[in-house]
């Protein structure tokens, strides 16, 4: 297992928190707290106040910060039923979990958890993942992605445009050199990406790049397929650049054009989203459209600069609106699926990157419209001034395209909002008792987990209990049990939302089925949650 600190990590959702002290009401019960359970505070409080139904004495207090580090808190002061606990100064932004344990006057210890957030609730998984990554590895991952995009879209797209927009073989010159370099850079970026991906997967620093296991690990991730497809497509495009025969050149270029779409559909957040039958083809379409459109820019600019390219420009301006339409439409659908909600656009890192990308794309659109409306027609009529302006405008567009690539590469580090609410790996448990049983599905998510419980009687036949409760306690007792009340849903199942278990480790789950007024079946089972 990894660091104890990571094991300790708990970022809790707000919903279950008010229910947490519920089962303990028999003795002293938590009546109120300041900050209130689940509240989001603008600034870090300097103390927590817990108000109980009767006098208590403090026992143990632990504070788990957003980084998963647990700290014992001392110095609790009691005034009858009112307990004040000083908090450490300068608490970090994010979700704080206070695990408290007190003893009531009747001598019975009770405990619970109080969750509040400073600034905004943290999403445990991505916060952790980003924090654990060595900074050099992050930069390498980003550069590799960006380089890969440049190679795939500018390089392969450029070769395709060149091969299909003109019947003539490519004259050796600056364009051929630039495309060759771009393609080679893309292939190298794909290879470096493998290493970076391996480092990230194994949580190793940059210095481990020499180890073959790192590269094998990189190859075994979904990015492995992407890298191989990208390198194959780059080789095909390089071959097309050198092919003399028109039909061979066009066939090779067309084959290479499959590369960007296939490579991107093989990996990444968008391709992993469901419905898969929709998302993967959409990513393919999106990437292919980018290659078709962005690939045309460089050859056009260079040809126009040299006084040619009129025919290619005319053909491009016919195809461009269609390609751009596919690009925007597929992009919009992907964004909608990934975001899940409108506020996610400005509330999540993923959404902010998307916003920035949309701004850049809008700027590109303005350039494209200007080129089309104001420059293309005069140029085709033979206006040389328009040609110079168009070259400058296309160069600006290419720069913006690179900005978009850089932003898209940054998505490598921001899980889409969809993933923050979507299931990771459901854990299925069968809990067995003499009088009743339960089939339980625990679905951990970033920052939370949901429980689905199907109560069964002693014979294994589904039945409807009067009430269903669940409590989850870490096996090492580092925090108090988290208690929740389940609500009935369809098909005789009961659902409950549990505070986040992103920290992983071993937990004991207890499901209480109220069989009758006087009979409660208490079923227990252990589960191990993996670290994010």
């Amino acid at each position, binding site marked *: 297992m990894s660091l104890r600190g990571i094991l300790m990590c708990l970022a809790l959702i707000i919903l279950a928190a008010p229910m947490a002290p519920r089962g303990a009401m028999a003795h002293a019960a938590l009546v109120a707290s300041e900050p209130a359970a689940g509240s989001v505070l603008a600034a870090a409080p300097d103390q927590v106040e817990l108000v109980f139904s009767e006098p208590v004495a403090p026992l143990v207090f632990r504070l788990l910060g957003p980084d998963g580090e647990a700290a014992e808190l001392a110095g609790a002061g009691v005034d009858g039923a009112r307990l004040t606990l000083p908090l450490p100064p300068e608490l970090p932004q994010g979700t704080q979990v206070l695990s408290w344990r007190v003893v009531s*006057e009747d001598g019975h210890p009770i405990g619970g958890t109080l969750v509040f957030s400073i600034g905004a609730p943290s999403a445990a998984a991505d916060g952790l993942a980003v924090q654990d990554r060595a900074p050099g590895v992050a930069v390498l991952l980003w550069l590799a992605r960006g380089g890969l995009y440049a190679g795939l879209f500018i390089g392969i797209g450029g070769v395709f445009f060149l091969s299909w927009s003109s019947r003539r073989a490519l004259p050796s010159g600056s364009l051929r050199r630039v495309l060759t370099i771009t393609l080679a850079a893309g292939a190298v970026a794909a290879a470096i990406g493998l290493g970076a991906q391996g480092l990230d997967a194994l949580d190793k620093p940059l210095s481990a790049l020499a180890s073959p296991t790192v590269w094998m690990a990189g190859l075994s991730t979904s990015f492995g397929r992407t890298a191989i497809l990208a390198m194959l497509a780059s080789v095909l495009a390089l071959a097309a650049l050198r092919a003399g025969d028109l039909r061979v050149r066009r066939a090779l270029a067309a084959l290479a054009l499959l590369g960007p779409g296939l490579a991107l559909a093989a990996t990444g957040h968008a391709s992993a989203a469901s419905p898969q039958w929709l998302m993967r083809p959409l990513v393919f379409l999106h990437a292919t459209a980018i290659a078709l459109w962005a690939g045309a820019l460089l050859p056009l600019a260079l040809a126009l600069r040299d006084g040619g390219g009129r025919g290619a420009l005319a053909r491009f301006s016919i195809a461009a609106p269609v390609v751009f339409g596919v690009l925007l439409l597929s992009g919009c659908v992907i964004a909608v699926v990934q975001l899940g909600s409108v506020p996610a656009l400005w509330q999540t890192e993923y959404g902010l990157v998307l916003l920035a990308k949309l701004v850049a794309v809008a700027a590109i659109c303005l350039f494209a419209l200007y080129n089309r409306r104001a420059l293309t027609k005069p140029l085709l009529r033979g206006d040389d001034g328009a040609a110079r302006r168009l070259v400058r405008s296309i160069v600006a567009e290419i720069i913006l395209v690179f900005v978009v690539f850089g932003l898209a590469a940054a998505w490598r580090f921001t899980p889409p909002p969809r993933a923050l609410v979507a299931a990771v790996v459901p854990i299925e448990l069968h809990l067995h008792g003499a009088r009743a049983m339960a089939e339980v599905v625990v679905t951990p998510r970033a920052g939370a987990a949901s429980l689905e419980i199907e109560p069964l009687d002693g014979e294994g036949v589904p039945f409807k209990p009067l009430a269903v409760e669940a409590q989850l306690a870490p096996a090492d007792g580092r925090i108090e049990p988290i208690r929740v009340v389940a609500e009935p849903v369809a098909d005789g199942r009961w659902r409950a939302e549990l505070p986040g278990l992103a920290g992983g480790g071993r937990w004991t789950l207890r499901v209480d089925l109220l069989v009758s*007024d006087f009979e409660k079946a208490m079923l227990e089972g252990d589960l191990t949650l993996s670290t994010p």
Partner: protein
Amino acid sequence: MNKLSFAGAAGVLLLSVSAAAAHVTLATPEATLGGSYKAVLQVGHGCAGSPTVKVRVQIPEGVVNVKPQPKPGWTVETVKGAYAKSYDLWGAKVSEGVKEIVWSGGSLPDDFYDEFAFRTYLTADLPAGPLYFPVVQECEKGSERWIEIPAPGKSDDDYESPAPAVILKPKG
């Protein structure tokens, strides 16, 4: 009470086997099989501060001849039914009787303590060891169920709201 002595007292209490005052419990913790037993339920608090308005106790199988003691200010009712089998009561056979007692109509503030008593006969068919009387405590606001019966290898202390229990000893 000053803080130190409170904490000290709490520590001592923590070491004792059960925090008797905390739960609904039986006043007499031991009884002999094949004899009478006066069960006295001790209710030390309401539900999170809310006064108790109803107490229900389920009579476990094997406990017969159950007669609740009338209680001023409270209405006592019993729910009768057939036993799983017939039991020997002072030479006579009994096959039906009280299965549940309900005290209602009263109001016991959280700050006060009260007892709810009933007389029983513990048949010799019962196994030695703990015998649980599950109790549902209903309050003006909310309720508490003292119905948790420890799993093998666990004790009352492992639970938040264990059912009141009496330890049965063989006749001897």
